[in-house]
């Protein structure tokens, strides 16, 4: 693998209205090849209708050491979760 190949993250939209979902990554020297490689690697079994590729270096991730500051405060705010409503009988999608 030569020096100018980069890692790209791949997102596939499985159906028109749905959100693009992260499926994995790949190596490619530029955006056209990244898209072609994504097509070959991740849509061989008819998985998608649209592909996004993003250079991995352009993704900003939260750090695991920030975990507490980022996520713990929501734990004790139970009113943020819709647990105080009575579920209507037969409703499936909540």
């Amino acid at each position, binding site marked *: 693998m030569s020096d100018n*190949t980069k890692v790209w993250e791949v997102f596939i939209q499985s159906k028109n209205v749905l959100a693009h979902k992260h499926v994995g990554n790949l190596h490619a020297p530029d955006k056209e090849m990244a898209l072609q*490689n994504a*097509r070959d690697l991740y849509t061989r079994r008819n998985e998608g209708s649209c592909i996004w590729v993003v250079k991995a270096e352009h993704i900003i991730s939260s750090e695991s050491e920030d975990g507490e500051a980022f996520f713990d405060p929501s734990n004790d705010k139970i009113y943020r979760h819709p647990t105080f409503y009575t579920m209507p009988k037969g409703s499936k999608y909540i």
Partner: protein
Amino acid sequence: MSLLNYTLRIADSSLILAQRISGWCSKGPTLEEDIALSNIALDLFGQANGFLEYASKLDGNKTPDQLAFNRNEREFFNLQITEQENGNFADTIVRQFFFSTYSFLFYTELSKSTDETLAALAVKSLKEVKYHLQHSKSWMLRLGDGTEESKQKTQTALQYFWQFTGELFEMDEVDMEMSKSGIGVGNSELKTNWDKMVNEVIDQSTLERPVDAYMQTGSKKGLHTEYLGHLLSEMQYLPRAYPNAKW
């Protein structure tokens, strides 16, 4: 009889090139490219299968498998370019680029065939071939306009495969008959567009178009280069050694 022969020619080119490309499986330059080439091989096997099924129906005697595995070298009609060895990656790409450009033009015309089966098979194949063309074109640009080494290897490959491009546009009596009746393609008319498409990519890749010289010929009569026999012996070994083998 002509229609059977015509169908076999199309089937054989796909089948033999598929078998060739599948030699890259697990040996590709990168994982991504390994899968890309394997996908192309599988597409071509699929196309070959469609045309062989039709040929089998026209023949009335042999199954598609028997056509693929029980014919000898002189009974194969694939274009000689398809049987050439994989060589290095640039060789494989140049071979693919020449053939896919041709296939793209060929299937575009064949999809208008008065023979419904051939037309339907052409439409299906065309979708796949468009991608094969895009894939090989992308690599032509990157290899030609890449490093000194990749450029030189691609130019050498252009030079080698050029002698097999004359055959793409040849027409014998079978082609004439099929073309006249609206079933087949007038191959000689594809050359103008093929030249245009190939020249454009060669220019963009900063490569040089080889000068026309002696062109190889013979596949329409079952004459082949030294490489087909070896390919067949590998491809046909199992079904010939164990004729009733089942998965």
